[in-house]
């Protein structure tokens, strides 16, 4: 069960044609897929397109009505290979994943798909996770489009353009027999806007027909000599076909402007923010009327030579706005203009930063540089770049223009603290707050079952010394942040164990590798576990088994211990691990038991057994569990059933204010408050209302022999009559004892009130 339910929103997918559809970008894309007569959809979840998978999952009844097959793929490679159904059959297929990580995984299948070409439209919707908030390395998917010769759409970021791109994407794919990538930037995926719907269409040719009357054609299989012919076909047939389609259907857009000896060429995805930057310089209005002519490339690849030359005609200079590096478009434009002997100067990364997201502020700077060079008079009339400040502070504050940060300073980061600092945005305004506002990196949720694993690991390292710990992609990667500072590398999803592969020599310490259940099923079972067995690795592999692909939004996976009407679940990781030959396996079924967790890790690190040691740390993701359990408990209390409600607490009077518990736990619910004691100026630990009583803080204080200030409160709702009787009796007896003690206390007290 995914973290977010779209059960209500997907009803909009049934909207009558001509309706104004209001919603999020990903929901709009789903609607457009149905309008395009798509036959099958697959993909792998990951921000920013996780919700697209969740929408599809929640839309299964509607998909079924329309005869659309949907499956969450085992990996992006699986999803890409799924598109092979469109190679021989005239079926439209769409797949989706997070890019560039997913595209990396899928690239083998994509290369083969692109080589042989397709018959039915094949659309790859990629969530381009680039810029602020990205959770991966910063690269561009563009390179994949170029190397495999697939077309890349980058529509303007409004729902009308995006949904239109889905329609034209399929048509372009079919017209040029080439798979098409549709790029959705982070903010476009989450943009709320509107568009006018069309009618949903059933696929013209179905998967059933394909299965029942199979077709094959050796010339479409990537085998010599066909593979060699594909290379020529791509350039001689498919490329011109694509160019023709793009030109004829005017997928790219031209906008006139009165300063016609200059111009701006931009990717569609950059359009809105560029317009806003032009507005700031007084060069455009809110409705897209620009004084500078614009050429908007909604097709990022291929670049249409004739259109570029048409745009550059009579222009002294153009500015190319293309985010990220290398500057593929700029280079291509130089080639096109140079070959044609056109004397237009192409600017781009000389005026805009080479690396990093093109924020409106960044675009304003680039446009200012361009205008300053070619039309300073136009710039002079425009609004100032800097925002208005109060006069008295104007002199004290440096110019508003931000200072570009050299990438090398970010690479040189070594400590996690420095990483946190580097992750913080550039501090430009309000310099008086530098060093005051603390960074807030993401971390484990309240009640997260992974936190105790890392508390245990911290305690083990206190006993056995620091170890090499290989991290992986998943929530568990948050262990790299304070307070744990655990994990030395992250090489890719499911590659935790394999990234410790080389560290397999005789030594006094063993390596530890971490892997999540999501990564395990994605590829870790073979790339990590199988590899460790085959190569007789002696390290320890910790598999975090929390029932779901938690980091991507809690989707079900093979080992989910949850009923799912559409999928087969309950396949234990332990069985799989033993199946590939691991002999030493320990499953900890309650990770909150820090002592057991610590002892198990200790055993794995010190046992005489030679060979891979796998520890499966198994407890349900707290987010999912709370969403499942909370309503059940509330209902049970309402029905009058006996329920014990638990919460943890800290005695302010007993707490030492040293915060060792916080350093070992890091639970968001474990926070600080005033000690209420004039003798204790340091704040004390405090458990806030967010506590879900997972017990980790108490366990950790206990396992680490920290202090006795933790307690668990138990509130018995709807107790039995017997319990009530016992309670009344208890209260009397305990109350009498307490009064006695209280009198003794009062006899040696200065104040009337003794707490």
């Amino acid at each position, binding site marked *: 069960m995914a973290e977010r339910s779209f059960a209500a929103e997907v009803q909009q997918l049934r909207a009558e044609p001509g309706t104004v559809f209001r919603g999020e970008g990903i929901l709009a894309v789903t609607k457009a897929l149905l309008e395009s007569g798509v036959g099958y959809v697959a993909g792998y979840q990951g*921000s*920013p397109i996780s919700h697209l998978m969740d929408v599809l999952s929640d839309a299964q009844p509607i998909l079924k009505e329309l005869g659309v097959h949907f499956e969450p793929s085992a990996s992006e490679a699986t999803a890409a290979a799924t598109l092979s159904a469109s190679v021989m059959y005239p079926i439209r297929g769409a797949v989706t994943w997070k890019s560039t990580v997913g595209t990396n995984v899928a690239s083998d299948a994509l290369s083969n798909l692109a080589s042989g070409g397709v018959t039915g439209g094949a659309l790859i919707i990629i969530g381009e996770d680039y810029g602020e*908030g990205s959770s991966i390395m910063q690269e561009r998917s563009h390179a994949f489009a170029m190397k495999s010769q697939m077309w890349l759409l980058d529509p303007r*970021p409004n729902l009308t353009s995006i949904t239109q791109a889905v329609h034209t994407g399929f048509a372009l794919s079919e017209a040029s027999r080439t798979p098409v990538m549709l790029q959705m930037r982070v903010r*476009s995926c989450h943009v709320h*806007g509107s568009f006018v719907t069309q009618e949903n269409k059933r696929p013209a040719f179905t998967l059933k027909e394909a299965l029942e009357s199979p077709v094959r054609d050796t010339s479409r299989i990537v085998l010599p000599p066909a593979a060699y012919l594909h290379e020529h076909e791509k350039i001689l047939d498919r490329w011109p076909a694509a160019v023709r389609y793009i030109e004829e259907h005017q997928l790219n857009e031209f906008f006139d402007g009165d300063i016609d000896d200059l111009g701006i060429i931009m990717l569609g995805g950059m359009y809105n923010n560029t*317009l806003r930057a032009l507005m*700031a310089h007084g060069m455009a209005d*809110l409705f*897209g009327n620009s004084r500078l002519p614009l050429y908007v490339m909604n097709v990022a690849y291929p670049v249409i030579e004739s259109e570029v030359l048409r745009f550059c005609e009579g222009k002294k200079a153009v500015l190319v706005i293309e985010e990220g590096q290398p500057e593929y478009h700029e280079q291509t434009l130089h080639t096109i203009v140079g070959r044609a002997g056109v004397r237009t100067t192409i600017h781009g990364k000389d005026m805009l930063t080479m690396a990093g997201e093109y924020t*409106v*502020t960044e675009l304003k700077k680039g446009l200012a540089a361009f205008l300053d060079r070619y039309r300073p008079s136009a710039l002079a009339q425009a609004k100032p770049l800097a*925002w208005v400040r109060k006069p008295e502070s104007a002199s004290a504050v440096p110019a*508003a223009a931000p200072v570009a940060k050299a990438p090398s300073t970010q690479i040189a980061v070594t400590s996690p*603290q420095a990483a946190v600092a580097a992750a913080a945005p550039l501090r430009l*305004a*309000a310099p008086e707050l530098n060093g*005051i*506002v*603390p960074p807030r990196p*993401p971390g*484990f*949720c309240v009640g997260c079952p992974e936190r105790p694993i890392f508390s245990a690991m911290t305690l083990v390292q206190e006993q056995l010394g620091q170890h090499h710990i290989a991290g992986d992609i998943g929530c568990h990667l948050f262990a790299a*942040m*304070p*307070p744990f500072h655990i994990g030395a590398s992250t090489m890719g999803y499911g590659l935790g164990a394999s990234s410790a592969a080389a560290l397999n020599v005789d030594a006094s310490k063993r390596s530890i590798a971490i892997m999540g259940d999501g990564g395990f099923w994605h590829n870790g079972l073979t790339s990590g576990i199988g590899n460790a067995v085959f190569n007789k690795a002696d390290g320890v592999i910790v598999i975090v088994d929390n029932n779901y692909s938690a980091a991507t939004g809690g989707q079900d996976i093979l080992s989910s211990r949850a009923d799912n009407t559409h999928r087969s679940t309950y396949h234990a990781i332990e069985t799989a691990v033993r199946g590939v030959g691991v002999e030493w396996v320990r499953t900890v079924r309650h990770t909150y038991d820090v002592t057991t967790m610590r002892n198990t890790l200790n055993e794995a690190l010190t046992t005489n057994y030679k060979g891979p040691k796998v520890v499966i740390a198994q407890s349900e993701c707290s987010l999912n569990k709370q969403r499942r359990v909370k309503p059940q408990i509330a209902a049970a209390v309402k029905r009058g059933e006996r329920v014990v409600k638990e*919460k943890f607490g800290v*005695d302010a009077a007993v707490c*030492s204010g*040293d915060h*060792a518990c916080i350093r070992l736990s*890091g639970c*968001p619910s*474990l*926070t*600080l408050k005033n000690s209420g004691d004039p*003798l204790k100026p*340091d704040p004390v630990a405090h458990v806030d*209302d*967010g506590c879900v009583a997972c017990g980790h803080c108490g366990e950790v*204080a206990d396992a680490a*022999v920290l*202090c*006795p200030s933790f307690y668990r*409160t138990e509130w*018995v709702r709807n*107790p039995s009559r017997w319990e009530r009787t016992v309670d009344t009796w*208890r209260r009397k007896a*305990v109350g009498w*004892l*307490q009064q006695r*003690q209280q009198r003794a*206390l*009062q*006899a*040696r*007290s*200065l*104040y009337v009130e003794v*707490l």
Partner: protein
Amino acid sequence: MSSTRTLGGSAQRPITIAVLAMGGQGGGVLVDWIVDLAEHNGYLAQSTSVPGVAQRTGATIYYIELFALSHLSAHANGQTRQPVLALMPVPGEVDIVICSELMEAGRAMQRGLVTPDRTTLITSTHRDFATLEKVVPGNGIADHHAVLSAAQKHSQRFIQADMQSLAKSSGSVISAVLFGALSGANELPFTPTAYEETVQRAGVGVQASLKAFAAGAKVVAQALAAAPLVDAADPMATAPQPLPQRAASAAVEPLRLRIETQFPPHAHAMLGAGLQRVMEYQDIAYGTEYLDRMQAVYSADQNAGGAARGFAATAECARWLAVAMSYDDVIRVADLKTRPARFARVREEIGAPAGEIVGTVEFFHPRLEEIYGLLPPKLVRTIDGIGWVRKLLTLAIGDGKRIRPHTLRGQLMLQAMAGLRRWRRHSLRHATETEHIQAWMDKVVATLPVDYALAVEMIVCRRLVKGYSDTHARGSSKFDQLMRAATLLALQSDAAEQLRGLRTAALQDAKGDALRAKWVQLGLPA
């Protein structure tokens, strides 16, 4: 500052709103409400966000642009011209910034989203401490005064209140209070009824949400009548209550009188708190002991010309000597866990009415050292050599104890432990602590006439010693190190300042990295 500026946007530009919220605070819900409100009241709305991994406890920035449909005009070809809306807040171009926590307001200012010519900043002033603030062994909490005064400076209009507690008292979530505050701010061209209809349309927890909404709307009016914005007191410090006119117990009255007559007035309150602590901890005689020690410090203070310095040494010592004398041990913990006031506090914490069955489970895990600490020194010396006794004791402690003080058995157990108070003076721990305290006091008294400021710093260094087991050992060793530094620094003119620097460093991290660095920086011998 106008209270009724209403933004309508214009034909030239949209209304721009940024929302900064932390994971789980319902920032997304608030944004959906604003979008729904606008769309139902004649506006185009576009919202975006960059959640990424920030969905897990990190901070998310949402951005909304609103544009009046009435400003849309038709092209020559009859088509309506649609506005091109930006996907991210632009520094200097944000009309309203809404923050669900105070430091997020700070972050908004750092990003330049809050500008004095334009921005209305609505923020909750409550704190959700960041991990980096919490892990500090001392007080690592960010300075909220700095953020509040920056907010006043950078915003055109500043609306602030503890919206988290308003949400709690309304039985709802902070997003509803913030939505109310947005309504109350009257910046958007929508009526309060339109806001309420939006909440009703959402259809989830409507009654509680509306209550929270109303509380939020009211806050704005109150904030405008504005009480002083920045509260000068440190929110993490508690002032001692004044020395009472009479002691609650007649037996204590002579001690109270002694404070009143023999000590400088501004130290009375802290001396009262200190006296109460040590008497609660042990007995009245222990209180006398405390005052005797204080007397010694006070006369040394007087002789060292303390009058000119407001008897700073005496005032500081009143606190830290009491803390030192009431060192944390099993006896004190057991005593605190049995207090009736604590039972009431626990109930209040979970919101359980008086009649309900509520109990607690206490986590005790003493080490062998703690058990030894309770025994007389001679006995410890004898049995520690005997292997099987050690083993037996270790076995008896086991993996710790879970005690339930609301049961008769648990209460008796704890009261019996607390009753060991009578033997405390004869214990090994008491001997060790007393010796430690005496050595510290002697040093302080000896330093007072030589370097008054250094002596005060030496007193405050006691802040490092706290807690149980490892924590206590770690703190004590740092304290001893600082006492050594005090001796080494003794003849330098800025010794006090340097010792303060070392103490601050010692409280920065648990492992003592900062202290080591500072130690090296000062060129002190290893």
